[in-house]
């Protein structure tokens, strides 16, 4: 954990750091170009007081994202993925949520910034694509009105120019006859076209950070591939940093450079896509990989689902939150029942929050897990 930047404000931060990400983070305040760290989340906690108790939806999350990179955030339902993304956009403001920690976007701490400033950044510097484009689009306004709305708010242009911009964007995301379709209402679009329109809306102000929250979950499989292609094409074209939130490891494998595996509101594992898919260190990641159907496997082979259910976010198990479902707790001499594992670097840039030693992780993965996949 020592190598992971904890306190963005402290001057010593970055000292003795060997990972690339942390080095880039150290250079962040001076950085205004198109490389280096764009987003840095530090010890983010998002808690919701409810009648049943405090829901710790996100509890001490730390990660960084460089410009031009794609970060995949994976985890089961209720692991805090969506809450995190809404938190970055500041969409929990005005709700009962208690947010602590730091979210640095290009040198600005969004947690401490006032609401109006965050609002100005929303839609212009950071934008979001939602899961279900039918319910996420307003049924009473045309697609063109909804796309140009964001552009009008953040730029000093006339309605006509904004509509033309919307037509250009629709054209760019692959809507045929954009000049006429721009006047259609969302219900006149097909599911895939709606998601394209949603993407056009998110891109309208050329955001530096694009968050896609389960962008393909509500779509047909054939359309899913098209949308994923579109997102990665646009990322190359616009050079934005992208966060893809999903529970579909296939999507992550397709798009992500880096992967953050979340469990019970914390990061369980963080690394490059190669780290996560080729040499994962966390038993939870093994479980996710084992639950993924593979065409290469013989049909007689059963999937290896993770036992049990995700923990309640009100009563998170003591120690490692994953320990009740973990098959390797015996190797930690009881540590996993009592102590929360910190993120440790097992290889450069590859961090795992597990009490198993890096050697144990490598051994179990190679000898027991990989052979069964």
């Amino acid at each position, binding site marked *: 954990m020592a190598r992971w930047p904890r306190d963005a404000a402290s001057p010593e931060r970055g000292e003795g750091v060997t990972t690339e990400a942390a080095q880039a983070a150290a250079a962040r305040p001076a950085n205004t170009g198109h490389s280096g760290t764009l987003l840095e989340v530090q010890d983010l906690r998002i808690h919701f007081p409810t009648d049943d108790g405090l829901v710790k939806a996100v509890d001490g999350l730390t990660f960084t994202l460089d410009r031009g990179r794609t970060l995949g955030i994976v985890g089961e339902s209720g692991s805090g993925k969506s809450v995190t993304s*809404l938190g970055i*956009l500041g*969409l929990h403001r*005005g709700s009962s949520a208690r947010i602590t920690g730091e979210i640095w976007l290009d040198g600005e701490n969004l947690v401490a910034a006032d609401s109006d400033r965050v*609002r*100005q*950044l*929303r*839609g*212009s510097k950071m*934008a*979001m694509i*939602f899961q*279900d484009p039918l*319910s*996420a*689009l*307003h*049924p*009473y306004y*045309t697609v063109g009105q909804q796309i140009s*709305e*964001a552009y009008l*708010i*953040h730029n000093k242009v006339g309605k006509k120019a904004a509509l033309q911009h919307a037509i250009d964007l629709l054209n760019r995301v692959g809507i045929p006859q954009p000049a006429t379709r721009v006047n259609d*209402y969302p*219900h*006149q679009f097909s599911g895939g076209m709606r998601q394209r329109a*949603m993407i056009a*809306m998110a891109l309208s102000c050329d955001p530096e950070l694009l968050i896609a929250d389960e962008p393909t979950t509500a779509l047909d499989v054939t359309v899913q591939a098209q949308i994923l292609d579109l997102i990665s094409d646009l990322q190359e074209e616009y050079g934005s940093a992208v966060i893809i939130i999903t529970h579909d490891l296939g999507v992550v494998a397709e798009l992500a450079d880096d992967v953050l595996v979340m469990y019970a509101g914390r990061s369980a594992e963080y690394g490059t896509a190669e780290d996560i898919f080729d040499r994962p260190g966390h038993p939870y990641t093994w479980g996710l990989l084992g639950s993924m159907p593979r065409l290469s496997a013989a049909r007689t082979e059963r999937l290896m689902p993770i036992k049990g259910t995700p923990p309640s976010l009100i009563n998170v198990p003591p120690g490692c939150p994953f320990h009740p479902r973990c098959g390797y707790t015996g190797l930690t001499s009881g540590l996993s029942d009592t102590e929360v594992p910190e993120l440790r670097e097992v290889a450069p840039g590859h961090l795992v929050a597990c009490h198993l030693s890096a050697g144990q992780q490598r051994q179990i993965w190679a000898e027991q897990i990989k052979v069964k996949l």
Partner: protein
Amino acid sequence: MILFIIRRLVMTVFLLILVSMITFAIFFLVPRLAGQSAYQLAAQYVGRNPIPSEIRAVEVKLGLNAPLYLQYGRYLKGIVFGVHYSNGTDVSYCPFPCFGYSFRNQQPVWPQLISDAPVTLSLAIGAAVLWLTGGVAIGVLSALRRGTFFDRFSMGVALAGVSLPVFFTGLISLELFSYKWPIFPNVHYVAITSNPLLWARNLVLPWITLAFLYAALYARLTRAGMLETMGEDYIRTARAKGLPERVVVVKHGLRAALTPIVTIFGLDLGLLLGGAILTETTFSLPGLGQFTILAIQNQDLPEILGVVMLASFFIVIANLVVDILYAVVDPRVRH
């Protein structure tokens, strides 16, 4: 869109014809089925304590012995062209549009309706403006400040508003603001054409009384609608675009929440235009409500028939307007 309106208009015409048939049947077919003779039926058209010769005259004039379809045809003809009621010696003329002839008052019903309608119209429209703006505004604020003192207080008042009958709140307001503190003394109806200022001043109390009842209802409806729409995904999208909260609430939230309000508003207004019986009676406003009450008290069947036809006409038209508005508001209905 134009096709949609034309289709609705045609349907409305059919609906009005159907309404006239049913109303006619209630007044002419049902008594016959119940075994009433034409003479007994005619007796009801003359008013209280009639003499037999009068009844005979009405029986002949109305043609109550003719087959029912002929009577209905004559009734429709009267509405379109006017009609002469004759028994050979004595002729009563009911000009276009003839919605019945009151033998008791010796005059056609329509001109009476026309002279009373502006009173009801003044009352209903003024109150409608008040309750729509007031109710929706309070509803929106309550929804946005859910659980606060403002929310609980206004919803408490709204509950009282829905529960208290108009004659109670109306009499209280008269007692307080017309007698005890005479801010609005001597409340009586003055035509807007003769003195607009006095017209408005004298209608303030009736407006507020009537609006209080409806505003309470609309505040609750708007609050529920806003709570629902503000939780929708497209509201989150609007916020994610960086729109100011005011735009999110009004342009995205209220716009969607208003659709059911528009529907109910049209129907409520249509219903009221047929006569706000309680309010008109409480404030002695000589509108259609008062007219209805008098007609019932006098057992003047042609007058009742006329006012029922007019009221149903208002409701049918209100339905038409609501349907068209719906298509204007919600594009999914249009396509």
